[in-house]
């Protein structure tokens, strides 16, 4: 995360309906609430979004400088993959050096590294969120709720956003009723995190 501009760029990959955009909004709330970031920006991929189609959302979080760039993020510091079926070689290749891949997968980080032949210097964090959802019967309109659990995983992989800030952010963005439920999912899923440092 040694970007010259001290801006951390995050890209979230998933399918329409999985809540990529909501996840990006919660991440910037959490980053700001943590007190570690002075400026934050979240935005969807600028295009028509359809349920089931691969979609993206983005976030920029900055420790000191105001964020002025409005360009789409081509090479993120952190890639969050909500659905392993949308992954492409480019998504992995484009993660910056010393960046992080966070993925909803049944594979361990070591298995992922071999399976996708990951050679760049990145930290890998995985958790089997699909299984987590099936076990608890967590579906919204037949789509497993993966976006808020994976935010718990993010807090395990990125020191500067703590779980407590993430919980507060989920409640702030989603409201008390939905937020308390969803933040409990993030808290539980955080425990499933498997980490591989480079």
């Amino acid at each position, binding site marked *: 995360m040694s970007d010259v501009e001290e801006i951390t760029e995050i890209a979230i990959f998933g399918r329409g309906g999985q809540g990529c955009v909501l996840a*990006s*909004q919660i991440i*910037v*709330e959490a980053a*700001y*609430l943590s*007190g570690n970031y*002075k*400026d*934050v*920006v*979240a*935005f*969807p991929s*600028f295009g*028509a979004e359809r349920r089931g189609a691969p979609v993206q959302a983005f976030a920029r979080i900055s420790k000191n400088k105001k964020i*002025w*760039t*409005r*360009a*789409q993020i081509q090479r993120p510091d952190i890639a969050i993959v909500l659905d392993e079926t949308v992954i492409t070689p480019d998504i992995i290749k484009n993660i910056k050096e010393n960046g992080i891949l966070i993925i909803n997968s049944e594979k361990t980080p070591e298995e992922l590294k071999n399976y996708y032949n990951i050679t760049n210097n990145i930290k890998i964090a995985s958790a089997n969120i699909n299984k987590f959802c099936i076990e608890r019967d967590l579906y919204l309109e037949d789509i497993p709720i993966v976006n808020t659990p994976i935010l718990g995983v993010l807090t395990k992989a990125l020191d500067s956003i703590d779980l407590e800030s993430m919980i507060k952010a989920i409640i702030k963005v989603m409201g008390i009723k939905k937020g308390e439920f969803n933040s409990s999912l993030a808290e539980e899923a955080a425990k499933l995190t498997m980490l591989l440092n480079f």
Partner: protein
Amino acid sequence: MTSVEEYQIMTGNHAAANACKGARVQVVAAYPITPQSPVVEKISFFIENGELNARMVRVESEQSALTACVAASATGVRVYTATSSHGLLLMYEILCWAAGNRLPIVMNIAMRSVGAPWSVWTDHQDAFTVRDTGWIQMFCEDNQEIYDTNLQAYRIAEDPSVYVPTFVNYDGYILSHTSMLVKLEPQKKIDEFLPPLKHHLNLGDMNIVKGVCPVTTPHIVKREEGTAPGYYEFRYSLQRSIEHSINKVKEVHDLFAEKFGRSYGNGIYKTYRAEDAEMYIFAVGSVASESRLVIDKLREKGIKIGLISLKLFRPFPTKYLRELFKDAKLIVVFDRDIGYGYEGILCYELKSALYQSKNRPFIKGYIVGLGGRDIITSDLIEGVYRAINLGKKNEYSEQTEFIGLKLDELDFLQKEVK
């Protein structure tokens, strides 16, 4: 930036809607179009929720939306609408009518490209297209600026020396759908800054003589002074009011800055690292904000360059720009719009403003990012370097240059016309 609690994270559209709530708008009429729709959705929510006491007029088109606003404003209430692209162009006729009626309507343009081909993404073509309708026009670079400028816009438009409708423009998606930190102000403080609308009953204030009412049509009777008595003089007074509104824009900006502690350059343009600059980038909105990185990168290389981000586009601040650029050697203008058959609109407006200057800098214009094509910092830097070289040789190119085209990649085989 102050404490965490004072800020909310919201999209540009929601910042605009919150400004309307703060301004206590009384009538809103709009028709949904991407990327503007969430503004009006949010306002509807405020009204249904009892947070805003306003009437939402449901209409069947943008033309009707603005017609409803014109009618409501003529009765003396504070009105608001927002639109984009084709919606704005469908309003064109009524835009002229609103200005002619001297109604202090405030409208947000969530800027979007105009078809064909179909595109919902940002550029500034829609906003620049309506520049000659007689409205004041301002551009924003971030969501806080949208909120703040909307509040200022009502105070400017409703001033008895102005009474001119006002556009506040921001980039579609790039601001409209992007979440940022926004500080919302307490209602009491806003009320102090923006008192209720005093309707423009005294036509003398607007340099208009009795008998020529901007709201009701004059009798179409042939008179000695012409078939439309006073039309010409009336249009003269509109032009004068718009010209003079620049002082009001500045004054309101300064009052706002004093009250709320946030300022945007001098209210007319914003500067970035321009103190000792010999050359400049000149741009508006998203292009200006992206250019800040370009300035940083070029400053690292020792190039004395600064950014002028134009906030007030109508009235065009000719006097201010002549003074600002009195020692400039080179100005690079990035236009996210185009005057077809000529060049970027901002570029030729600037050239025209500086024609009478003692110092005429070399001005190089580029077209960038039409239809939401991503603007890449390195592309802009390359453009600046090319402009520097052309400037040294004082070489003007006759063809408009575009940055970030993908002709080969997209298999556009059209031959360059010599």
